[in-house]
């Protein structure tokens, strides 16, 4: 099982932002996508997650192997921590979420409504969601925003455990994740060249 991206061109709002993106992720590997704000990290991850079509290029990934986590955690404030997790487990055809509760130390919070959690605790719940899906490839957008150092360590631990079982992780961030063994991919190198302004003939963009 692997994730292979070749010659990918992606667009935001119809305008190409990154072109010729290529990388391969194999089992047990983590890849951190880096680059300045606005370069297209989020767009790249959303494209790989299948939320938007690429302009050109190939994304080779086994079907039903990917789980995406964006800026927002998709947590319902009026449901308890346990209800939130069990919902996502069921959506992905799983039942057991105790492991996720354990990994992010949510046990004491599990009966609390998610709306009563702090920002960092919510984020932990959002990351715990990844564990209940049972998917091998994690695609994470800024996973450690609003986490304290202890929680970042928890996250790093969870990712390592996931990699150790043959999983993969693709993450976009511009802060340290505490994962020194992860490879880096600076997407600044793939910045799309501005199109010539005289090519009225093509589309408009």
């Amino acid at each position: 099982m692997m994730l292979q991206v070749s010659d990918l061109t992606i667009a935001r709002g119809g305008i190409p932002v990154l072109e010729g993106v290529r990388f391969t992720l194999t089992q047990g590997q983590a890849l951190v996508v880096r680059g300045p704000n606005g370069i297209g990290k989020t767009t790249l991850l959303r494209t790989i997650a299948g939320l938007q079509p690429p302009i050109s290029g190939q994304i080779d990934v086994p079907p039903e192997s990917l789980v995406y986590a964006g800026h927002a955690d998709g947590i319902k404030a009026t449901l308890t921590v346990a209800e939130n997790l069990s919902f996502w487990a069921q959506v992905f055809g799983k039942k057991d979420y105790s492991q996720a509760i354990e990994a992010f130390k949510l046990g004491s919070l599990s009966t609390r409504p998610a709306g009563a959690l702090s920002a960092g605790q919510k984020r932990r719940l959002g990351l715990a969601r990844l564990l209940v899906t049972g998917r091998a490839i994690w695609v994470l957008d800024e996973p450690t925003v609003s986490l304290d150092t202890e929680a970042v360590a928890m996250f790093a631990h969870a990712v390592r455990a996931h990699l150790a079982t043959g999983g993969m992780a693709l993450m976009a961030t511009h802060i340290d994740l505490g994962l020194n063994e992860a490879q880096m991919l600076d997407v600044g190198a793939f910045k799309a060249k501005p199109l010539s302004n005289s090519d009225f003939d093509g589309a408009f963009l």
Partner: protein
Amino acid sequence: MNLNAFWEYANPKKFIQTADWLLPWFAGLAAVTLVSGLIWGFFFTPADYRQGSTVKIIYLHVPSALMAINAWLMMLVTSLIWIVRRHHVSALAARAAAPVGMVMTLIALVTGAIWGQPMWGTWWAWDPRLTSFLILFLFYLGYIALWEAIENDDTAADLTSILCLVGSVFALLSRYAVNFWNQGLHQGASLSLDKEENVADVFWYPLLVCMAGFVFLFIALVLMRTRTEIRARRMRALLARERMGA
């Protein structure tokens, strides 16, 4: 007809060139036929023995109603072309046609109401045809509002195309429903070509000229407005690109 040659006009630049060339012709034709048709109808046709001089409203009412429906049909076709072949000009043509169609619907409604006042004794009757046109008007409003509300052009084109398809089905359903709901005062179809005898020749020929005038007017307006939409889109693209570069 060679289809490949036809699709060339889906190229925005080519379309603008063609529109530049065609526009004066259609504008001229529209002006000539519309003015002469309306003058013929208004000044040189007799009053109907039943409806009196109100029959002269037919020269506005029927052609505008015709174009109100044809404009929606054109939007339906161009929406389909956008969905299937993703030619930007097609989506923009649908966008350009919508306000024209809406004004045509409005003319048909207003002239219908003014005509209905002396004939039926009321400004507004919930007659099936008038009601259908009112619903059509609401569809135009929603369609145009959706175009205006969405910033990204491709998203807007996709969403409005699907709305146009779904809306067409529901417009047909509404037409049937309204017919069922109220049998109506409206006279039967007096304009279809095979039922010519319903309308005497004195009324029929100027009506034909007026209908041609409205068709030409519609074509001229849509050509011009599509050209405008293409330029506006090009401008937005250039500005967006500049912002990206900066």
